[in-house]
């Protein structure tokens, strides 16, 4: 029995277990997505998060213990963000030709993303802290956490809200774009990257390289524009309403 306890102590302390279950969950999720013929709703990020959350809740494992191992996967988000420059460079001829449309639609879409989240949460009677948490929802996780902190939100809840938005956008976005009859791959990529940051970009990259490059670009532009303008506008609106 003490042997088992020692094994448990070892597993909880070393990153090996958390890292392995994360990768196993991802492989299972890829299998499921493949079986569903890559239907957007069978989103592998969503499936992995559900599987691992159930494991943590069922096994009484603290999130902090899980994350201390899984952070090695989390760390790769940085280099992966840098890597988005590669498809952008490969597609540059296409992107340059549509610079006006790209900048205008991303800035407009980013403003709508923030405004609609704030308006809906406010109308539903959410606390100011939750509204501030929701405002930078469509921006890539690290930027959104920084913005939420400046607005007085909860940065760690922001990460969850951002990833939920990303998953939702990746899972349902393609169907919405079909309904809205948006067929241009560039426009589809811009919409996915603006509203659903990296998770939407991951989906776009899987479907079409052009859509992926435009999604990555939209994600970066939206992060930049929202980080610059949202705190300014927020201060203005909060100041006026007092």
């Amino acid at each position, binding site marked *: 029995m003490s042997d088992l306890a020692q094994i448990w102590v070892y597993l909880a302390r070393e990153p090996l277990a958390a890292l392995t279950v*994360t990768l196993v969950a991802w492989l299972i999720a890829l299998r499921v997505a493949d079986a569903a013929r890559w239907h957007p709703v069978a989103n592998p990020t969503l499936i992995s998060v559900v599987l691992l959350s159930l494991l943590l809740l069922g096994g009484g494992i603290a999130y902090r213990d899980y994350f201390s191992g899984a952070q090695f996967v989390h760390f790769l988000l940085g280099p992966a963000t840098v890597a988005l420059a590669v498809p952008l460079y490969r597609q540059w001829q296409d992107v340059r030709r549509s610079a006006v449309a790209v900048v205008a639609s991303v800035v407009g879409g980013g403003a709508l993303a923030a405004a609609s989240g704030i308006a809906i949460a406010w109308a539903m009677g959410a606390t100011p802290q939750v509204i501030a948490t929701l405002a930078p929802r469509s921006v890539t996780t690290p930027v959104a956490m920084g913005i939420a902190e400046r607005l007085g939100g909860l940065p760690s809840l922001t990460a969850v809200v951002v990833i939920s938005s990303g998953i939702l956008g990746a899972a349902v976005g393609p169907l919405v774009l079909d309904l809205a009859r948006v067929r241009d791959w560039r426009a589809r990529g811009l919409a996915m990257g603006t509203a659903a940051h990296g998770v939407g970009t991951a989906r776009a990259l899987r479907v079409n390289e052009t859509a992926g490059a435009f999604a990555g670009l939209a994600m970066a532009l939206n992060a930049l524009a929202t980080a610059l303008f949202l705190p300014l506008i927020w201060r203005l609106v909060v100041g006026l309403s007092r």
Partner: protein
Amino acid sequence: MIAGLTTLLACQLAGELLARAFGLPVPGPVVGMVLLFAALMLRRRPVPAGLNTTADGLLANLGLLFVPAGVGVVLYLPLLAREGPAIALAVVGGTLLTIAATGRLAQALLRRFG
């Protein structure tokens, strides 16, 4: 592959340093992406094979990299139970509206301006 990864990490590191030194509102990796893009443009040649492979490998599994932070949802189950409807509606309504509007706007502008 290691050469590609080194390039990515070096750009991220330079990005982090620049972001901190100048108090930029965007995080290091986004600055690193701009730096790598600028470097590729200045080089004016196809992407080096190693960088190509590493970037494609990472981006093919981009969805995996959000999983550890996403599992953080378990920490917020009580708060989500309390403020769940507002959060859910803001996430669902806001995201779907943004996707539809951005897609339509982008498609219209692309038709107009190429």
